């Protein structure tokens, strides 16, 4: 999850945020880290780029990107198996 936090910070240019500032279960959107719909789209590309996971639509992102933990879980469940 530490790697994922680093990737999120980089992708979203969260300059003043350190990986340890983001709690595993802290909400990423609105009241938590304060992310918005544009960030959700950025995270969709992050999943695709780093983990080869393609989300079907932006709405699916709402549940996947609830927190770093839900995101990590989703990645584990959906990552294409390497042969």
């Amino acid at each position: 999850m530490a790697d994922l936090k680093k990737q999120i910070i980089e992708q979203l240019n969260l300059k003043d945020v350190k990986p340890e500032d983001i709690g595993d279960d802290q909400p990423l959107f609105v009241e938590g880290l304060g992310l918005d719909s544009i960030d959700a789209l950025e995270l969709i590309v992050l999943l695709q780029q780093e983990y080869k996971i393609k989300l079907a639509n932006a709405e699916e992102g709402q549940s996947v990107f609830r927190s770093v933990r839900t995101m990590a879980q989703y990645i584990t469940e959906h990552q294409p198996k390497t042969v």
Partner: protein
Amino acid sequence: MNFPVFIAGTGVISAIGNNVQQHLHALENGTAGMDNMTYLDSVHKHRLPVAEVKMSNEELAGLAGLPAYISRTALLSSIAAKEALEQSGINDIRQWRTGFISANTVGGMDKTENFFIDFLKDSRKGRLRNVVHHECGAATEITADHLGIKHYVSTISTACSSSANAIFLGARLIKQDILDVVVAGGTDALTKFTLNGFNTLMILDQQYCQPFDENRRGLNLGEGAGYIVMVSEKIALSLKQGPVCTLSGYCNANDAYHQTASSPDGTGSFLAMKGALEKSGLQPGDIDYINLHGTGTQNNDIAEGTAIKLLFKDRYPKMSSTKSFTGHTLGASGGIEAVFSVLSIQHGLVYPNLRFETPMKELPFTPETVFSKGQPINHVLSNSFGFGGNCSSLLFSKT
């Protein structure tokens, strides 16, 4: 100084036709302009339908009387602006203080994006004639020079409300007695830049769009240009054919909510429509038809719909999104839809909102689904909303 502003001519080119007559025909027959991508060369060719003007740059250049290497944005602009001016019956524009106010969102990007392929490999490469018209203002000047308009030229770019704002400004310059004649509207060609940009927002429909439908999936991009000719009363009286209608109201307001998304209650849309009504001195009940912004995205249609619900209460005028025909033509949409609004008053037309099936559960009204003519249409409201919360409404009234 507050002189009335008359509309004396219209010109339009889009995926459903190259001139006003062809548009009337397509609108009556319910012929949509979306299709597989033919002229734009993109990897999304087979996945994303678009509403292209069905002509190559060479063919457009022939029609416009301009060289084929210039930006498609400028070619489209010149064709529609010329039609508008010809239709107005004004013989010699040099006799009057004439202005050309055009809008677009990406200027000569259709050429720049090709230039960039070579330029990125080597910064000394890429043909300069492909970037010389990159700026938004360059497209405007090509058309202004082509039409011989010199007195006042300007370009507005406020994303998808750009050309509504161009018309708005033109009307004000006539009211202020700064200009006698204004050709105003907008143009945009399809580009890979905008296609990929909207694709990253995940708001492009892979099928043909369904504005104001409960099951809407997004928008289809389109291209084209639309202009109206506005004149002062003095000019209007001198024309053989009387003016079609007046621009009786206009307003621009900002949603100030988010860079791209509309606020859930459509604050900006509400303020723009309300402001246009106030400017004209009309009541919501006076409006006969609304040409919706109606892009087909989840976000726009609920925001716009909610604002209409709030403003019109229980007396909803007929309404439809003609983007179901033309696709979303971005910087051209306000101009193209202004032309449709004028034609609506001129011929008593109400256009269908193609492919509408299921009412949106949040809204107590539904858009029109059939074409009708000979309707008593006196007042038409046309909405254009864009990125940056930029919301504009224009109000056209029968003379």
